[in-house]
């Protein structure tokens, strides 16, 4: 903004100090709206700061981006609003403005400021991505960002098929159920794959999103920190009933989880024997022209 003020210093006498005025308006509006965005809007930004590690990371960065984006948005809007109101020609006559063709100082300042912002954002995003176990996003078959307790994480395979999610628990005899139960406060590693077309596993409240691609094993880490239910959706167009490919998942206490999984193991024992052996990817025969 100092650059705009510099422009004013070179302006003709008698002209109001537009740069100073714009800066003042921007400063006031920013001082009011940035706290509003952080403390009033921020807590409502998804996913949530308390449901899981991944959702907390995403929530924090969403609040941060909002806090950084608001002053930028306001600066441009205040400038355009001021220009639209003050630099207008009243009446029918057409008058030329001053023939200013550029100002290297302002241009360089602008480039420096935007470059700094952009580099800061990129560094921040990268640090977050690697420091925080991939923040719940699918990382492909060979994840590089892992949580500290990745080796003891509970493995759950998420299988997408038209138009249903099923879940295999390889640590529990490889049973396959349409229900997703997670023990609270335990690291979970999802292995997401698909049997037919592209899907995307989206556990909204947990902040997990990983595409289910046929022939690919997509790994995502999350550690739920609240006993609650969560929405499971498909976030990649997968055909006719894409919008209906939803389900409810449950985060339960460790003891509830143990009793549920034991019950499922017994109930599904017959089915489990018929299943293909657990594998990170499956190659069923392709379905063509199913409409």
């Amino acid at each position, binding site marked *: 903004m100092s650059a705009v003020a510099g422009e004013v210093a070179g302006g003709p006498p008698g002209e109001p100090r537009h740069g100073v005025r714009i800066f003042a308006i921007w400063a006031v509006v920013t001082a009011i709206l940035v706290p509003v965005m952080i403390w009033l809007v921020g807590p409502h930004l998804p996913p949530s700061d308390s449901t899981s590690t991944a959702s907390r990371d995403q929530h924090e960065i969403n609040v941060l981006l909002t806090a950084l984006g608001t002053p930028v948005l306001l600066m441009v809007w205040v400038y355009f609003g001021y220009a*639209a109101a003050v630099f207008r020609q009243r009446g029918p006559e057409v008058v030329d403005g001053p023939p200013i063709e550029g*100002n290297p100082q302002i241009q360089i300042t602008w480039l420096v400021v935007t470059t700094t912002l952009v580099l800061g954002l990129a560094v921040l995003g990268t640090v977050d991505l690697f420091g925080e176990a991939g923040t719940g996003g699918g990382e*492909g078959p060979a994840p590089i960002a892992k949580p500290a307790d990745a080796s003891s994480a509970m493995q759950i395979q998420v299988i997408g098929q038209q138009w249903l999610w099923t879940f295999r628990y390889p640590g529990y005899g490889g049973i396959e159920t349409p229900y997703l139960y997670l023990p609270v406060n335990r690291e979970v590693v999802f292995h997401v794959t698909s049997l037919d*077309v592209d899907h995307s596993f989206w556990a909204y409240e947990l902040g997990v999103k990983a595409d289910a691609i046929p022939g690919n094993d997509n790994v995502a880490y999350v550690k739920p920190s609240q006993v609650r239910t969560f929405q499971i*959706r498909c976030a990649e167009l997968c055909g006719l009933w894409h919008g209906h490919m939803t389900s409810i998942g449950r985060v339960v206490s460790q003891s509830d989880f143990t009793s549920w999984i034991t019950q499922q193991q017994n109930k599904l024992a017959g089915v489990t024997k018929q299943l293909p052996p657990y594998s990170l990817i499956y190659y069923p025969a392709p379905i063509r022209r199913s409409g």
Partner: protein
Amino acid sequence: MSVIEGTSTTPTTVEQPSWRRQLLGFSVIWAIVGAAIGYAVFHWIGTKIAKGNLAQTTSDQDDVAVLLGLLGATIGWLIGLGFLNYPVSRMLGRPPSLYERQEHGVWRYFRLCTDHKVVAMQYFVGVLFFFFVGGMNAMLIRGELTSTHGSFIPAGNYLTLVSLHGTMMLMMMSAGVIGPLGNWLVPIMIGARRMAFPRIEALTLWLTVLAGFVLLGAIFLGGFPTGWTGYAPLSDQARAGMDCYLVSFALIGIALALVGLNLLVTVMTLRAPGMHWNRLPIFVWSMVTTSILAVLAAPVLFAVLFMAMLDRTVDTSFFLASGGGSPFLWDNLFWFFGHPEVYILALPGFGIVLEILPVFARKPLWGYRLAVAGMFGVALLSFMVWQHHLFVSGINANLRPFYMFTTELISIPTGIIFLIGMGTLWRARIRYTVPMLFSLAFFFNFLIGGLSGVYLSDVPSDVTTHGSYFVMAHFHYTIMGGLVFALMGGLYYWLPKMTGVKLNERLAKIHFWGMFVFFNLTFAPLFAAGLLGMPRRVSSYNASLHNLNVFVSIAAFCLGTSMLVFLINLVWSFLVRRTPAEPNPWLSKSLEWQLPTPVPVYNFERIPVITSAPYGYGVPDAPPVADFGPPGIAPARPAIAPEGGTA
């Protein structure tokens, strides 16, 4: 009338054919007949070829026959328009047909014509027609979404509607500026009489129009469920409507590459004397950068579509994991085209608003060279960001920081465009005409679109928003809020020159305010829908989002109505109250506004000598933009003019 450049042996005028010739000669009627015959013949050949192939004949629709039929339809369409007349007569040693060079008459608009102004108007009508078809699809989609679990459209038809809307808009908007405005303005702005390759120019138009109809043909072949991205292997499952998507997008790919090539060669070779690169209007620069993207990106699209066609017909498995292929191959190749495509949609908007701003701010364009650098920066970076569409898809995780970085870098050259706009408005004398209102709204909307893009570029934040309505709101803010607003501004600005007819200003203002208010009321709430967890392209959604969606649907219907006002304005101004436009109603200093209205067939009586950049507002003793050369006297070498408009 002067001779056509470079072909001095050609007769200078073409005789007006008789009305019988007009009616029976090669024209759009014969193009339709040709397309129908071509489709029937090639479809029949296709059924013969596919005979015995179980995968084709046991399905209800035979892709081999449909794809070959569409190829035949394309050939028949072009023959019916007379594209073969010239090469065939040359091959037979006969004098070349000059039919398409006919200079007068309404009939020119219904057939192959190589006058760049006629082609541009044909583009305008064609693109507008398909734009409204795509808009009607959007209205039906919003109607369906007034209920949480689908109201009046069956789920399969809903997906076809979504896919048609997306594909139609993407296809037609990539041709939406470069077609009508690019073809009309670029030759005139650089002081030329034509495009470098007039027949190729006409070819791109007729391919674009055919592509629109082929895409609509999908409705009769079972529709297609994939959206505009056509992801495999979903596309491999789809019925024969998918073939219409593949062929129509391929036609657009060919048209885009050719139109880009044509514009690049035109700007490189046909500039008038004195039109140095640093005097080129900023709109021409935006067309140059768009053309570079089109030439480099569209062939990749064609290749990937061809691979999908092979997967569907001769059972290759490029995209089938079970056959050794990979869906990622489609994703990567498609987005290698798809992301430059996004800037094929953005750069023309930059060019239009930066061309309009100086005229109504009555100031030179601020930072001309930086603006050009910004456009080239956008063009260059747009080839390095495509994997940000695949952040959570399970690509190599090591690559993601690189694509996050390049994606965020692109906001530097985009930010430059904002700086240029802000600098141009500094201490300006703004006149609030309709083109100026649209240009200012462009900056308002595009800023929201751009800043929401920052969330999507950041991988952790993208995990929240990827595949949700947030993305959908984001790209509607950039494409509709950006490009379509700029295009509307450009049309209100240049249509009086292009058609010689003045548009009704009161209706134009109603159109602008309706479109601006309801555009924002439609798409701003959709950011919230995305953040609240609504995935894209669904016809049923969580009950808690019902009120929000009903609100958006009502706003969308009002937005649709405001677009109707535009149509009413066109009908009113062209058919009901026809007021001739003045030659230069905006008092612009650009070259195109110094020509008489309507512009003569060969644009310039003599090739002008350009004496200054077109933005000399407020410059004391600014020279006229060009010396049009008094008749009979050879134009003198211009005195060295100040290098106006450079930063």
